[in-house]
């Protein structure tokens, strides 16, 4: 593993955990790395915190950036929201997030 790479663990909706190596020097977000790894994350709005298709539950105790107003607003309109809910598109992959553990939130079917 190179210096600019971290590993994050993403639990999919079937309970399977995927260990994903991710670069930290490309401004990737959790949403983008999930999409690039063919996980079922839609990221409909492209990362503007304007849908909620990338909602994840943060399972590890990494210190993440505070939620912006935009992110709070969007989570207000989302479903299955828990205390540890975040939008994957708002979590940028940084070296200090090595070992981050998240779980994909259910996808609304209606």
């Amino acid at each position, binding site marked *: 593993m190179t210096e600019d790479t971290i590993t994050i663990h993403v639990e999919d909706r079937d309970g399977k955990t995927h260990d994903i190596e991710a670069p930290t020097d490309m401004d990737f977000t959790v949403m983008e790395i999930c999409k690039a790894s063919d996980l079922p994350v839609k990221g*409909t*709005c492209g990362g*503007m915190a*304007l849908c909620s298709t990338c909602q994840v539950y943060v399972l590890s105790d990494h210190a993440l950036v505070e939620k912006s107003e935009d992110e709070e*607003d969007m989570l*207000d*309109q989302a*479903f299955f929201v828990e205390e540890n809910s975040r939008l994957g598109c708002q979590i940028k992959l940084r070296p200090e997030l090595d070992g981050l553990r998240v779980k994909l939130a259910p996808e609304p079917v*209606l």
Partner: protein
Amino acid sequence: MIETDILIIGAGPTGIFAVFEAGLLKLRCHLVDSLPQPGGQLTEIYPKKPIYDIPGYPEVLAGDLVDSLMEQIKAFKPGFTLGERAESCERQEDGSFIVTTNKGTKHKAPVVAIAGGLGSFEPRKPPLSNILDYEDKGIDYMVKDPEKYRGKRIVIAGGGDSALDWTIYLADVADQVSMVHRRKKFRGALDSVEKVEQLADAQRVNLITEAEVKGLHGDGRLEAVTVEKKSGGGALQIDTDYFIPLFGLSPKLGPLADWGLEVEKGAIKVDTLDYSTNVPGIFAIGDINTYEGKLKLILCGFHEATLMAQSAYRIIHPDKKLSFKYTTVAGKPGT
């Protein structure tokens, strides 16, 4: 029956610009969109966001870009069917298509260009197992006619502007108004938030925060909802005539999926020669299409619309020769 040359499904930036490119070829266009105003996601979701990758605009607000595009196509006098969702598309014997909306408006055109973006915007429905059973039987996802709720008991869920605004408005109309919101804080306009809090203090609105509607009950028609507080303490049952969840809109491919078009991962497959679909006469441009190397950019949508118009011309006027002219040569468009 509305008749036109190119029927454009979706009035976002790509659909609007398609009118311009078609107009240069003297083709008439009519646009259909499920939203009540043109602009698609730019107007509906992010009108105040700056965009930086439109050629010639170092920075432009999404809403302003839509205004400029509308100005640019004005001379071509396109028709609009707004607030209606294109539902079905049937091919006629003469090769043309008839597209019917959910409100029954019929459109006839030899060419259909789908510029549907992410799909049509539909209200977000809370994931309650029996919610579909009560649709139009006590559950409304939008307030169309406030008078419907006069003297009734209603429960509104959501914490945004529309939830706040309707709570305030309906407090004067309905017999009993409850508002349920997931958080203590509201994200709506400050004065609406204050107004709702005042109404709650005056006991004219039953404000329940840090709570969610978790159950729907009723025999054939909605009669009650259960609300669960985050802090626990058991579920609270509220007898009600209506439940109005207001959680914004989200895009769905919707009925387009049944038009016989080749669809891959929620997008319509096209030939990059002219963005034609597998159905001759139907094109797909902008975010709704997919092909190898596809990028969902407004910029790319403009290009796709331009090439689509050329092929559309050949379908509409099979006997005429198409000569390409720069706008610098042809002069002011639409004159």
